[in-house]
């Protein structure tokens, strides 16, 4: 028992502190913030795609693809603005944060090397949308670093007699001019977007293998049960998921079968997050049925959220977070569920989702059916539900025993 409490102390103390320090650097923060704030745009696009799936059953419904084009389809522009804006804000450079964001958008478009034809600006639709996300992230981070360093250093002496506004104008003009010029040269010389794709292709390929798929899930789960935001690696994961679902949709449109398993629709809406990351819905049910008054109270209060796949109440209530016994069960589930899911889809036993929706908060198994319209998916979901229940059971019982002992002593 001494080891146990020492482990807990270490987790809650030095370990947490080190991880917190890592998490709070402005660049990581900016990437996480970016996806949170832009989420409504992704959801609008998802809603349009979801609506379009109904056209398979009711053919006279209008085609809402354009709504997707103007929301999700412009995501690289939004990211290019928001990432350096957030970095500048973290570094307290409030005066220049907006113009930095705009400069980054200029940079992105310049790098996309658009053409001017008959008075029309013709830019590759993918480059400002889902295909350009990696470039947008890199450009956003670089511009954020460049501008924040530049403005912190400043061009003029501190006690210059020029008004602040004028100083900001001059400084801004110079660096933006240089940035755009550089991006024009680069954009015309190199197709950065394809290059990025080639560079990230190996990573994406790894992410699309069983090990990569499993690892990404387990890293998020590990972060979460250690009390860190699971959003740590979300920029990478989300970028992979979005690219994959776009590729799946394109394949289906071309009459082929979708191949990419690592998508938000499959993992979060479908089969790997029953009740939230780590499949805590069965755990919530175990909690409600518990003999411990404290645990069953929390279970009853948390079930409403769990149904909508929000599991912070369960994670922090039982708790699972920084609780060694439950963490073991949590990570066991986080190993077994993605493994089984991957195998089932790889074998083609259930249809791979191919429509972008990204609505993680919809109750399962409703959302499970929505992502691929395949009844066999419901069977898989039910199997995973029962399996997860029995995996959590022994760990839960062990912890419950501890809790009951504590309650008796009190």
């Amino acid at each position: 028992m001494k080891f146990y409490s020492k482990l807990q102390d270490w987790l809650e103390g030095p370990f947490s502190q080190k991880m917190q320090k890592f998490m709070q650097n402005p660049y990581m923060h900016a990437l996480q913030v970016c996806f949170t704030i832009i989420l409504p745009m992704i959801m609008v696009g998802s809603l349009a795609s979801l609506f379009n799936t109904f056209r398979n059953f009711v053919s006279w419904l209008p085609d809402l693809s354009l709504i997707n084009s103007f929301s999700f389809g412009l995501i690289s522009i939004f990211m290019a603005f928001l990432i350096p804006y957030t970095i500048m804000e973290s570094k307290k450079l409030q005066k220049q944060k907006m113009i930095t964001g705009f400069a980054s958008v200029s940079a992105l478009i310049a790098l996309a090397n658009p053409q001017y034809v008959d008075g029309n600006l013709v830019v590759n639709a993918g480059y400002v949308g889902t295909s350009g996300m990696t470039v947008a992230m890199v450009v956003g981070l670089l511009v954020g670093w460049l501008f924040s360093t530049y403005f912190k250093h400043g061009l003029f002496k501190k006690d210059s007699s020029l008004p602040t506004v004028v100083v900001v104008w001059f400084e801004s003009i110079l660096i933006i001019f240089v940035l755009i010029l550089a991006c024009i040269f680069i954009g015309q010389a190199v197709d950065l977007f394809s290059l990025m794709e080639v560079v990230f292709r190996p990573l994406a390929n790894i992410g699309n293998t069983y090990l990569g798929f499993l690892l990404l899930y387990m890293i998020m789960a590990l972060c979460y049960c250690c009390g860190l935001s699971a959003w740590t690696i979300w920029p990478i994961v989300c970028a992979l998921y979005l690219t994959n679902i776009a590729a799946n949709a394109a394949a289906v449109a071309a009459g082929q079968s979708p191949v990419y398993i690592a998508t938000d629709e499959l993992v979060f809406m479908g089969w790997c997050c029953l009740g939230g990351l780590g499949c805590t819905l069965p755990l919530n049910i175990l909690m409600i049925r518990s003999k411990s008054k404290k645990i069953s109270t929390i279970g009853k209060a948390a079930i409403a959220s769990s149904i909508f796949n929000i599991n912070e109440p369960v994670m922090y209530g039982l708790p699972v977070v920084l609780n060694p016994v439950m963490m073991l069960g949590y990570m066991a589930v986080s190993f077994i569920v993605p493994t089984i899911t991957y195998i089932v889809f790889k074998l083609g036993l259930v249809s791979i989702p191919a429509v972008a929706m990204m609505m993680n908060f919809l109750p399962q198994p409703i959302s499970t059916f929505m992502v691929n319209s395949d009844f066999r998916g419901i069977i898989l979901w039910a199997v995973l539900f029962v399996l997860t229940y029995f995996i959590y059971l022994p760990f839960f019982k062990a912890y419950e025993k501890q809790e009951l002992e504590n309650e008796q002593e009190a």
Partner: protein
Amino acid sequence: MRILFICGNGVSSGMIAARTGKAGKAQGYDVETEAYSYTELSEVIDDFDVVLAAPQMKCNEEMISETCQEHGKKYALIDNYAFSTLDGAKCFETAKSLI
């Protein structure tokens, strides 16, 4: 009294925010509560009197503490048990004690 609740995306703190508002009004106070993502903290903090952060915000506590200090507002991390059982009354007491 305006209480700001923050968590990852504003969703999990939304429920506790509503419960706390109810608890406060039941005690006869003029209470308004809202839930936001912690990413928007610096933008909305001036509209509120006090900040309550969900337990999972512990890993961002430094940033929250800094922002609150800059804007002259007090904050507290919601107790795990109170958060999970949606104990609005307890949260309201915490908020009251900070003002």
